[in-house]
């Protein structure tokens, strides 16, 4: 057996000799399908996993998942991996009208695919057991897990946004110092917090304009179509060479309208969506910031409690009280908790420092790609427009003299 050259994480090879291949975990979310009827209706997605990870059941697995399953996965990861910026989910759409629009579903499917892929390529998150369950468990197991944890966490998808909002106000309060000043005094970290908050505003604005730009393309396309139609009617009225000229122009106009609609869609999927994703990512980071603040608070509170307990204990020691043993017990427990809290907090700090680097690099790649697609699309459209109109000139000339 010849050793195979190491493949990238995206490779789709059958792992005949897994030991000779670098490990990969490749996931895709595809084929949205409407299930059920009426109010109960929902969209299901096909989730295909290809991997050579030993913990997984086999080289390939296909399962059917719905949006709430993805939400479950996010919640579990958020709980377990504090400090890591969990990849963001697409929003739950609350407007009934658009819930099943083709465009919305396509966008969501793409976003979910990105979500799972980011998890699968994250060196820590990809080890998660919850991820394994998500990718492999049958639907009943999944449903059980989902309803169970919904009970425990008391989280429903619609609550997610509310939680974010709460976190935001909490963090804002903390940053603004409204609550009791149990916060880190870490100038670098403060800078980061400020950066994240301001960044959200900027990216949200950019995304808003991107959304409008998509609309403008659609509108321009529509008006070109209407214009073309009207000009053709005028041409029919005129007849002769001028009529033919109008007719040609009208046809071109209608053709360009079609191109504009296509570009609008391309913009939506490849430019606006990445910007939306950017906003979500920043909001997700805010969630982590809140977790860090809460962990810090816990650590501080425990430290306080331990100190008080120590004082108590010493008092009891001096008095040689029979409560001393119990108190010692409690004290030891508290100290263990305190160490645990400190460990948790330190982990979060460490992870966050790594994550911020990863985040910035990832965003540079994501935005770079988005910019490239944007520019490519605009150039393609502009060239099509130029070609179409330019091709008319010789025709117009010949018609004029005829």
């Amino acid at each position, binding site marked *: 057996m010849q050793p195979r050259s190491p493949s990238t994480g995206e490779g789709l090879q059958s792992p005949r000799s897994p030991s000779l291949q670098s490990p990969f975990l490749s996931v895709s979310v595809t084929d949205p399908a409407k299930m059920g009827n009426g109010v109960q209706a929902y969209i299901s997605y096909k989730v295909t996993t290809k991997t050579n990870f030993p913990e997984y059941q086999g080289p390939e697995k296909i399962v059917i998942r719905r949006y709430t399953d993805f939400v479950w996965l996010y919640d579990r990861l958020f709980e377990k991996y504090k400090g890591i910026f969990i990849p963001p989910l697409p929003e739950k759409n609350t407007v009934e009208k658009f819930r099943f629009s083709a465009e919305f579903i396509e966008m969501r499917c793409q976003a979910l695919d990105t979500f799972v892929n980011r998890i699968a390529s994250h060196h820590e998150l990809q080890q998660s057991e919850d991820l394994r369950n998500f990718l492999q468990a049958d639907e009943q197991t999944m449903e059980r897990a989902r309803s169970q944890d919904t009970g425990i966490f008391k989280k429903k998808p619609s609550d997610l946004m509310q939680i974010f909002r709460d976190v935001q106000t909490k963090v804002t309060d903390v940053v603004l110092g409204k609550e009791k000043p149990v916060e880190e005094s870490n100038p670098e970290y403060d800078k980061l917090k400020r950066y994240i908050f301001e960044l959200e505003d*900027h990216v949200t604005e950019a995304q808003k304009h991107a959304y409008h730009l998509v609309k403008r*393309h659609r*509108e321009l396309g529509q*008006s070109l179509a209407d214009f073309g139609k009207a*000009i053709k009617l005028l041409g029919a*009225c005129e007849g002769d060479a001028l009529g033919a000229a109008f007719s040609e122009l009208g046809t071109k106009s209608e053709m360009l309208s079609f191109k504009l609609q296509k570009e609008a869609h391309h913009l939506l999927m490849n430019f606006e969506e990445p910007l939306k994703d950017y906003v979500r990512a920043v909001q997700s980071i805010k969630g982590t910031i809140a977790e860090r603040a809460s962990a810090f608070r816990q650590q501080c509170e425990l430290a306080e409690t331990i100190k008080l307990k120590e004082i108590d204990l010493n008092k009891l020691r001096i008095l040689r009280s029979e409560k001393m043993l119990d108190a010692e017990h409690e004290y030891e427990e508290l100290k263990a908790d305190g160490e645990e809290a400190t460990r948790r907090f330190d982990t979060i700090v460490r992870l966050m420092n790594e994550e911020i*680097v990863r985040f910035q690099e990832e965003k*540079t790649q994501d935005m770079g790609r988005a*910019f490239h697609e944007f520019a490519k699309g*605009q150039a393609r459209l502009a060239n099509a427009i130029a070609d179409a109109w330019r091709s008319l000139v010789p025709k117009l000339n010949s018609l004029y003299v005829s």
Partner: protein
Amino acid sequence: MMGFENQGFEEAQLHASHGEMESLVLDDDDNNNSGNDNNPSSRSNGITNGDVSQHYNHPLSSSLPFAEILTTDDDDPLLSSSSPHQNPNSFNSLLEPPSYADASFRSFDGDHGKQINGHGAVSTSSPTADSVYLKVSVTDPQKEQDLNNSLVPGGNTFVTYLITTWTNLPEFNGTEFSVRRRFRDVVTLSDRLSDSYRGYFIPLRPDKSVVESQVMQKQEFVEQRRMGLEKYLRKLAAHPVIRRSEELRVFLQVQGKLPLMKTTDVASRMLDGAVKLPKQLFGESVVSAAVDPNDVSHPAKGGRDLLRIFKELRQSVANDWGGAKPPVVEEDKEFLDKKKKMQDFEQELSNVSQQAESLVKAQQDMGETLGQLGLAFVKLTKFEMEEAIFNSQKVRAADMKNVATSAVKASRLYRELNAQTVRHLDKLHEYLGVILAVNNAYSDRSNALLTVQTLLSELANLNSRIEKLEAAASKIFGGDRSRVRKIEELKETMRVTDEAKNCAVREYERIKENNMNELERLDKERHDDFFGMLKGFVVNQAGYAEKMASVWESVANETSGYAAKNS
């Protein structure tokens, strides 16, 4: 990256002219083109002095003795001068001088000679020896006081405009001269032209628009009016027949008070005609030459012609509802076909004009949004640069800046594109106005026909009465003195009426001739104008699209490193 001036495209002349919406003129060697541009320096015009008089019946040379200029009634339904012409000023706010004044488009010179410039055709060539020009400009609005009629001192101000003319037409004694006129004078000019040039497609004058003058800022309104006047006068100067009219010459040249009969109010007209009025109303004994048969060659107006209006109205009702066919019908099938075609054309044109406005709006919106997007990214870029801790941020900021500046560039290009688009597509609006002028000319024709029909009915009527009286009189032995006298009177009336009928017929024929000639002229002009518009539009769109493509292509190249490797 920045300088479009550096690109090696061949230059077309984009001549920025503030607030002017000049038509695009095909730069063709053979054909005459009469867009609205009366660039004195250009226009190898096919129509020279000589051609005009051959081609058209100069009204002053017609066999019809030209009666004195009648008073007009502004409310005359037969002379509707109000125009629902779409306000071209809705585009004015979009017009700006292009920042790329010498913007370059890729050459379309496969067709040399057919290359479309901006407006103004060959603006640099000097006038040839036998080309004629008549260029008018309207400038310098000034407030003046009407000293005569103001009861309140300081009240009753009005605005005058300086009207400057450059010409080499012989009937103007001089090549450059100016007068001051007020809007009222323009109304007078317009009314007089309508009277004198029945059957011609006379350009419509600007609206009186009282409402707007209340709503708009004074300065804005005055400027709008100035532009409207200039456009109107230029259109008149471009019309091959009207430009030679005495009315226009007088308007443009005679200093001081405008010596054209203006609109008077009904009361004074009544006074004028008071002497003649009773006779008119009773109609019977119009033996005296109080009524000139030639009066029938003018449309019936209010006041003096009340009776005539009643009669013609009765006739038109008889035409529409009566059983008998009117004595003379519009038989020219070709004319009726053309009229129907014109109506269809008007409808479609109006529709296109609306869609053109939507298109312009969509382009404008696109440009605005691109600009806003660019600005948002500029802000983001600045933010990232300031806060950058990691190199990846700096890289991202650089990419973003690239996109941002390109978006802003594209936004500017869209704005310019739009300004040009407006200029080209404005031709559509213009022709909507032309159609109104055509409809007026067709009304002239119908009215003239109605006059003829009315007179023919009268003649028939008179004739039958004479016959009846003659029959009755013959039965009385020795004759019936009163009846005989009556017959004599009626015969005299009939003679006068017959003369009038002949005048009316001649007038009708004359108007028909004018219609036909004008239609020919219009067809030719429309052909040229619309081809010019189409080509201008198309070249404009293509040119700007190419520029935008190049902007975005360079960004795409610079970010090609991020291109998705698979899928």
